[in-house]
């Protein structure tokens, strides 16, 4: 199994696109830092929550830079995940994998792990880049101060990575379903990216429905779980019945990830490798 993962990992980084996409995320994070520093704007209107109002300028800058880079990483991880499967079918290299002494569950699992590893590595790179730019422009001192939940910026950033990873894994599992069933690389990528944009609209609609009809169970829909950040907490004014806890959020997402993964696994296992 390790060999399968190692092969996927080699293939992933042997492609120029993997490096280019990561570089774009890094450049975007750098431009954000440069823009904030050069223009002296943006820090107070960052993605940080009210609870971070007392955080240092450096901490806020870091979170803004990290957030801008990681938003691109989310999209790029989706693209790479779609490519990891569909390219094998589009270029017919899948037959090289499926005629080796491993079952299809193992093949798919190695691809999922490679996609997960790409996401984690990309987020860690953006994290390090955000740290470097913050240190260069605002100094490293502010990063040691407590930001929220008793965590300094370094730790807060790492926890944010873990939250992003879990949230994005849900996307990746959905992308796996699309990619396992599609032959067209372009279509799988388009649908996958579209999904991310559709998500925000669906989340808003479902929230309105939940509040108006008082159907609090709707809070367990995957889109709501995706938009929830346990570090930020629930929206102000949200009734207790509609609120989520950190554990509820994590368990809910893991269940959804597992469900979508098993659907992808079922499709991948049943699929005939048809004629080219």
């Amino acid at each position, binding site marked *: 199994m390790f060999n399968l993962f190692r092969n996927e990992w*080699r293939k992933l980084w042997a492609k120029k696109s993997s490096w280019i996409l990561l570089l774009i995320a890094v450049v975007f994070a750098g431009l954000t830092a440069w823009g904030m520093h050069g223009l002296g704007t943006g820090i107070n209107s960052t993605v940080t929550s009210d609870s971070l109002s007392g955080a240092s300028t450096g901490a806020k800058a870091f979170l803004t830079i990290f957030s801008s880079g990681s938003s691109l990483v989310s999209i790029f991880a989706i693209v790479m995940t779609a490519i990891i499967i569909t390219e094998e079918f589009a270029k017919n290299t899948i037959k090289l994998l*499926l005629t080796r*002494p491993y079952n299809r569950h193992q093949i798919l699992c190695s691809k999922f792990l490679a996609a997960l590893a790409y996401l984690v590595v990309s987020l860690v790179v953006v994290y390090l880049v955000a740290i470097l730019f913050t240190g260069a422009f605002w100094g490293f001192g502010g990063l040691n101060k407590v930001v929220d939940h008793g965590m300094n910026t370094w730790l807060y950033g790492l926890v944010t990575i873990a939250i992003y990873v879990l949230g994005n894994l849900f996307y990746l599992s959905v992308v796996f379903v699309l990619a396992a069933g599609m032959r067209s690389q372009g279509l799988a990528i388009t649908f996958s990216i579209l999904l991310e944009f559709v998500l925000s609209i669906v989340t808003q609609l479902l929230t309105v429905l939940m509040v108006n009809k008082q159907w609090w169970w709707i809070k367990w829909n995957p889109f709501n779980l995706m938009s929830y950040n346990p570090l930020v907490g629930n929206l102000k004014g949200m009734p207790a019945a509609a609120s989520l806890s950190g554990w509820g959020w994590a368990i809910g997402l893991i269940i959804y990830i597992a469900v979508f993964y098993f659907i992808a696994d079922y499709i991948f296992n*049943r699929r005939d490798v048809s004629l080219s």
Partner: protein
Amino acid sequence: MADTTDYAAVVDHLSKKMHYVQILKDVSFSVGKGRILGLLGPNGAGKTTTLRIMVHLMRPTSGTVTIMGEDVEKDFTKAIMHVGAMIEAPEFYNYLTGFKNLRMLADMSRTAISDADINAVIERVGLANHGNAKVKTYSLGMRQRLGVAQAILHKPEVLLLDEPINGLDPAGAHDFRTLMSDLRDQGTSIVISSHILSDIQSLADDLVVLQHGQVTYQGTMDELISHGTNHLEVTTTKPDETVVILQQMKLQYTRKEDTFDIAVPEGDPHAFQKQLAEALFNTGIPVTTMQLRQASLEDSFLALTKEKGAKANV
């Protein structure tokens, strides 16, 4: 059906239906250990589909495939360990070198394969100077060689090769035939699907002919050749009188001026040749040339597929 462990591979009552189209219908054959089986058939006969099912790239609608006694459907990983396969055109990761492609595939094998082993295989298929070039720079023939390399990399007991000579130059085709003969001599059982009949003729011990998704012939090469019609080419100085004799003998022939191409009826072709010579001699028709042309594999194959095709269309 004999004990599946007696054979390297056994295909048993295989059927495949896709989108309401019957691709394979009750296909059965077996591959003897240490033998080369040629899988023949016109385009669309179901050769590639059969090979795909044999390596579990496709699932059959019904029927089973057993490799070295292991059921491919029930115990895939055990069965496929014995198999090296090249199905359809060989595709690789273009952004990797030939060596790296093989290294990656070697790492997926259950047996330890060193870099030296990989280089030896690269050399054996005639890619010694190209192992470190990216596959995207390879010609079709080089890809074909690399395809064979990945199939034999882990020294499998059963080789399944789909149109392996496609794209090879004459030297490459010769190398390939030598390699296959060597592997057979070492005990490897090989299935080669091809529409290049001469390649099959020089390699295969056994033949399976597929047509319209059905096995229309299974046997040895010699048996198939004997199925074809022999021809007798006769040139006389009195062609019009010759026509009368041929019609009297109720023979099928074609005429080109004073030369006749006569289909030899079933039976001993030499006895027929003698009988015709006597008939012409007795009626005073001088024979300039008389040459018996034995059926080639191509003649036999065409005769067989035409005959079965006609039956299938009835």
